[in-house]
């Protein structure tokens, strides 16, 4: 009798623990802080600056989300995760979302019980080698030692690429980008492979960047984007549409500087719906009217974030390419705010 009562209580407690993570939006609001899983340090995407404050392309998405949900872009706690720990950290509820150059794949979306809500950077895997090796194509890398970050899709793509081209390599499996960079600069591996954006970011931090080349081959599709736990659809919607608000803002010409002005003067119905001057779109995802306005005001629209962190004027120098707006021949396409 007594035993069954105890077991019953335990079961309820166990279920309650399971349920607790179901409403992330409420948790974040109650906590007053957004916990965002990021890279351990990838310049331009997510890395602490000289003052120890996280800056970057992925960080900006977290800040915009914090502004939308908590009305304060500074209320974000960044939890650095490695390729190995990131999905466990997300699944266990240690972080509310992951914005960490994570590739959207079928098995991660289904079997790992994750939801990739959007793609904030369309990427592909590339190779970086020292210029004096005289390599001009990845297909010439037969017999090379290659540094590869473990727990990533790149690990599998690499194996597939070499197999397909019938050439061999020696993998040096490292835990994170910084270790890969150390091994690569020490010459412990001939080539370093990861997403092309990551290569550009790594190359930008090398003292002798001009002595390293990124090979032309892009051997995979790497759609990188914010990830949330499967099953909490409302939170997924909040993250997805906060990101699309930034994309739509670029398309509609709304910037950090003019967002207040446009909100009062614009007559474009879509702008008015997005910025909350017409209708109440925010209520549909459990937020207030001005959520998108706050998100855009933090670091601007998608284009501004791109240009400020990884664009051609920065040391990383990435072109928009696939990440241009659909009107410019790219893949950035926000569904209508209606």
């Amino acid at each position, binding site marked *: 009798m007594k035993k069954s009562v105890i077991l019953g209580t335990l079961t309820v407690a166990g279920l309650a623990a*399971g349920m607790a993570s179901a409403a992330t939006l409420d948790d974040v609001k109650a906590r007053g802080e957004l916990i965002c899983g990021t890279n351990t340090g990838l310049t331009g995407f997510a890395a602490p600056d000289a003052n120890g404050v996280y800056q970057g392309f992925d960080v900006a998405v977290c800040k915009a989300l914090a502004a939308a949900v908590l009305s304060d872009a500074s209320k974000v706690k960044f939890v650095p995760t490695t390729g190995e720990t990131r999905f466990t950290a997300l699944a266990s509820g240690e972080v509310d979302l992951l914005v960490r150059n994570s590739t959207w794949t079928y098995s991660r979306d289904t079997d790992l019980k994750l939801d990739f809500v959007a793609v904030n950077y369309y990427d592909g895997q590339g190779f970086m080698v020292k210029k004096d090796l005289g390599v001009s194509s990845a297909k010439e890398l037969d017999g090379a030692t290659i540094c590869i970050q473990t727990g990533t899709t790149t*690990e599998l793509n690499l194996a597939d690429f070499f197999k397909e081209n019938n050439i061999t390599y020696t993998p040096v499996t490292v835990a994170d980008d910084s270790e890969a960079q150390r091994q690569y600069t020490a010459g412990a591996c001939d080539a370093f492979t990861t997403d092309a954006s990551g290569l550009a970011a790594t190359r930008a931090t090398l003292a002798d960047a001009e002595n390293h080349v990124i090979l032309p081959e892009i051997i995979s599709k790497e759609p990188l984007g914010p990830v949330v736990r499967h099953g909490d659809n409302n939170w997924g919607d909040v993250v997805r549409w906060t990101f699309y608000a930034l994309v739509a803002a670029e398309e509609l010409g709304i910037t950090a500087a003019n967002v207040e002005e446009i909100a009062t003067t614009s007559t474009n119905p879509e702008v008015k719906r997005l910025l909350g001057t017409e209708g109440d779109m925010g209520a549909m995802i459990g937020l207030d009217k001005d959520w998108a306005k706050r998100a855009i005001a933090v670091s601007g629209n998608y284009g501004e974030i791109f240009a400020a962190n990884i664009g051609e004027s920065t040391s990383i120098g990435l072109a928009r390419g696939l990440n241009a707006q659909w009107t410019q021949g790219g893949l950035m396409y926000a569904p209508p705010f209606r």
Partner: protein
Amino acid sequence: MAIVADVPKDGFRLSMLIYDTRFRSITIQVVVLILFLLGVAWLVNNTVENLAAKDKDIAFGFLWNRAGYDIGQTLVPYTNDSSHIRAALVGLVNTLVLAFFGCIFATILGVFAGVLRLSNNWIVGRLMTVYVEIFRNIPLLLWIILVYVVLSETLPTTADFRQSAQLIADGLPPTVSMSFGGTVALTNQGLNVPAPFFARGLGQISLGGMTISLNTLLVFAVVIGSFLANRALRRNAAKVQEATGLRPVIWWKSLLILFAPIILVCIALGLSFDVPVFGRFNFAGGISIAHAFTAMLVALSLYTGAFIAEAVRSGIMAISRGQSEAAFALGLQPGRTMKLIILPQALRIIIPPLISQYLNLTKNTSLGIAVSYLDLRGTLGGITLNQTGRELECMLLMMLIYLIISLIISSLMNLFNSAVKLKER
């Protein structure tokens, strides 16, 4: 006792479970057992509930799926088309190889350091003290990384071995050339040595997915046979010595038995060496030992060796001084005293802590991921876990495997211990 005898036989009351000393200990044990089982049940229940809440199940079927990744050091045949379980096996073999050599080197080092620390020579004794204290008191991970970084940052890069177009134009050789007559190359990526191979093969046999070369088997059989024959020879010599007081001269017979058969076999099979040659980026052919392995081996041996040295020292110090004094009185040299009198007795005290050190070393191989050494933790508990997302299954399996390895080492060492321990008759 009188009280117990006076207990009236009016049956069993519940309060006796607590107040009667005959039942109390059983009561307590039963209660503790129930609490323990409840604790276990709660953990299991909690896990199952939470997995169910996340819509996940526990299944080991993924182990037979294609792994899809490559491993640097593969001592059993493996490609990225092999299964995850195969990758785990590759990792397990890497773990065992490292643990095996680590235990051997750590023991040799530990015994020497332990004996020398007791040396009457001031410098030698202090040097060994410094060695033991430094290695015992700094975390192993730091040693592993230190050795690895030193190896990979100080040795010549593979690029230095390259004959670039510029050098050819200038008529100069590469910056660094291979050592030992162009057969061995030590680069910042690893050590490349010639690989022995047999020109005439006896073929291979397949055993449950593993192909074993008959040549290797033959070589092993011949070596073991030679050793056994040599032992028989020595035993026979000892017998003759005991009977006649004269020890027959056997050194040349011994050498002949040890080396002639294996040399003959090697000639018969056409032994030759595959010398590493510099390819486009790195050395191809031969055997390449990555620095990850070397660093792990060196750091593990030095670190565990320091602990073994202490075990050896304590074992030696536990032997009464009278033993060595008696040996000296018989005219034995200090070296022979140590080898014949002290160490055999000290062994009884040394072996139990030695078992713990072997277990520690084996488990510490799981730090290999720090220097990209893909052991069991790196394959099954690293890449497989990540690519499949089966954390719980991989962790449970890995814990089980480490447990089994440790229990095997432990029972082998216990067997050895019971063989050398003091025989009480």
